[in-house]
């Protein structure tokens, strides 16, 4: 309150001396401002500065005064602690300003406050002689500023302050679906030469969902160990230098959630010999946490629990070979979103037990099996399990449940 009153008083004096319209008065215009910032001066100190600015090379005599404050805010938030306060030069002094003129500084030791936020604020008055007149400008920049903090970026995405990547149940990155994120911490200040900086990474939220290649140094590789709890950025990471920390860097870890069978349910006569076989064409689309269809990614199936059907005479039918669907094979991934799965049986020349010519179900089953589909890998036991079905081969059609 005291400071505010001082400011108002000075302002009033200036206005009385110069007149309200004198801020831009003829050729004696005043272009001045106050800026402020805080910065680290070495490993353990912060310095607050208030700087006055005026056009370089001016022929006028300038005078200025500036106030500055320096606060510390703990990680838990307000209240703030005043670290230093002052003004310079005194209101009676006049100086010839250059482009930038440091008016006031204050330095404090980080000691035990590494995780907090440091603020600097300032305001200033400027006057200029102009012939027989004195013009004045009151420049209030009494807003606090964050101290320069270390920042975190992802390689390839330097302009973003969060990142999303994939979890494929422990399988490695594949087909452009990345399960790792390379993070870089940047101090944003120039440490003195030969100073050993203590740089650390810390997972501050959902630490079990990721692992770090290293918790020290300026870079770390984050690997997903589990998926997020939904379409949210629930994993948070910070980078610290000498205890001075970045803001939390949010991560979202997406995953394939389920498969939609976008086609299937109808067995057709096998086209090349319709009276000697059938085909059940199916298409599938993977769906992610956000409800969106996933584009091409290596996917595979595994069979288990084989059981004989009710028609022993057909027991000699061969078993299928588990499939792998790979991007880049248009007969496997048939579009950006869909891969095809075909169940079929045919015997065009009738050397095995012929299939009934009437494809309308007679409920003569040959065998059944559980089919499990995994996205994100072509290897058995790898990738994200997205679907289990029971497949049954009948003599005249196929059936997949659900």
């Amino acid at each position, binding site marked *: 309150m005291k400071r505010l009153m001082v400011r108002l008083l000075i302002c009033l004096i200036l206005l009385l001396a110069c007149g309200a319209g004198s801020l831009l008065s003829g050729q004696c215009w005043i272009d001045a401002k106050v800026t402020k910032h805080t910065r680290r001066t070495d490993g353990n100190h912060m310095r607050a500065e208030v700087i006055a600015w005026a056009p370089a090379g001016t022929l006028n005599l300038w005078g200025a005064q500036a106030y500055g404050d320096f606060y510390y805010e703990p990680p838990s938030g307000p209240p703030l602690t005043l670290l230093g306060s002052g003004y310079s030069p005194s209101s009676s002094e006049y100086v010839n300003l250059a482009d930038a003129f440091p008016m006031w500084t204050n330095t404090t030791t980080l000691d035990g406050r590494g995780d907090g936020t440091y603020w600097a604020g300032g305001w200033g008055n400027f006057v200029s002689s102009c012939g027989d007149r004195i013009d004045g400008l009151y420049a209030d920049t009494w807003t606090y500023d964050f101290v320069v903090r270390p920042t975190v970026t992802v390689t390839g995405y330097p302009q973003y302050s969060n990142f*999303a990547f994939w979890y494929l149940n422990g399988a490695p990155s594949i087909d452009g679906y990345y399960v790792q994120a390379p993070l870089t911490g940047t101090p944003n200040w120039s440490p003195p030469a030969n100073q050993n900086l203590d740089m650390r990474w810390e997972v501050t939220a959902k630490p079990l969902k990721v692992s770090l290649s290293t918790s020290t140094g300026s870079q770390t590789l984050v690997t997903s160990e589990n998926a997020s709890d939904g379409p949210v950025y629930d994993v948070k990471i910070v980078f610290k230098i000498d205890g001075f920390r970045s803001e939390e860097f949010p991560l979202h870890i997406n995953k394939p959630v389920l498969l939609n069978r976008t086609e299937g349910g*109808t067995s*057709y006569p096998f086209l090349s010999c319709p009276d000697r076989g059938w085909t059940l064409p199916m298409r599938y689309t993977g769906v992610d946490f956000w*409800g969106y269809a996933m*584009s091409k990614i290596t996917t595979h199936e595994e069979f288990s629990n084989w059981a004989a059907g009710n028609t022993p005479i057909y027991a000699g039918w061969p078993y299928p070979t588990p499939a792998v669907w790979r991007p880049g094979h248009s007969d496997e991934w048939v579009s950006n979103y869909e891969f095809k799965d075909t169940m079929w049986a045919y015997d065009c020349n009738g050397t095995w037990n012929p299939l009934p010519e009437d494809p309308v179900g007679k409920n003569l089953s040959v065998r059944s099996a559980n089919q499990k589909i995994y996205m994100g890998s072509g290897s058995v036991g790898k990738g994200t399990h997205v679907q289990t079905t029971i497949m049954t081969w009948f003599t005249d059609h196929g059936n997949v449940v659900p």
Partner: protein
Amino acid sequence: MHKIPVRPFFASTVLLLTVAVSAFSSTGLELVSHADQVVIGTARSLSKVGRQAVFQLEIERRLQGTLRPGEVVAVECDTGTYIAQWKEPSPPQRGIWFLRNGAVGRWTCDAVEARSGILSYPIAQQPLPQDLKYEKSAEVLDKVVLEAGAAVLETVKNNPRPTYLALLVRNSTEGYDSPAVRRLFRLYADSSRPWLKAIGLAELVKRGDVPTLLRLEKEMATLSDVPQAKRIIYMFDWIRDPNPETIAALGKLASSKSGIEGLNLAAARALRAMHTRETLPYLADLLDSKDLNMRTEGVLGLGFFASGVPIVRAEGMPGLDFLNKREATKYTTKETTEYFGFDPSRADEFVVFWKDWWLRHRAELSP
């Protein structure tokens, strides 16, 4: 190709039972772009030597290339399997063939679905109906699709049973759209065969065809027992053209009272994927839905808009571009970032935030 064990040909192993077998097929675009010659003709003396189908092809017409009507050329096709895929001796096969220059004196054909034994697209016996006629200057793939489509329509005219032929021709249009293709699928959609109607509607929805979206409720109401109709709902994932007519049609479907399973949600999800300014009133309406899934779409959609999320597209899914390539807008704030996404454990809080956000911005953002 690993899915079918490659084994020496032995005559008795002709029955194949498998799942997930690659059909060793190509899209129409691939077939046309790889072919030196695209011709209509009849294959005679078709037989199999190892994996190769070998035959004499008598040219009837050409759609692309230099072969002349009446010419007879030797052709071989790799079927990808040693197993016999047709009855022997094979009757003559008339169809649309895709040929490449092969060894001296022989052409190589790219089969349409080799492992299914389908070497060519079908061709109608009768002249093309008026609805499917095309100009000589038409795109080759359009010619192929219309010729083969005519064969489908001819087949189903006298046969009510679903035929794989219709899917085969549909598959030829994968990744391709043109007025000719839509013309064919409109004929499918107008068919008296419900299963064919469903296939046609699905393809038109996939292409974001506005007239189809506008009549979809009525059409789908007649298809409740048709297995092929389930696909229609999934095709909303493909609609990403944010023109105002499409948005309006989707908005209508998102609030549909038809009770058709999945229709509202599919339309809402497409709106959310585009989240342009025109979508906002529809997305905001979803916040009042009784269905949590619909409210979620509203929350996500408004958040996507405020946070400058690009339109969600297939090619950007591996890199999660819609999340990683956001460009902040003037509506991006600390709060909109905090409420970006949807935390199921704080569902009501998210809904309330975005309802309030919409109240504050509705006047300036409503079209």
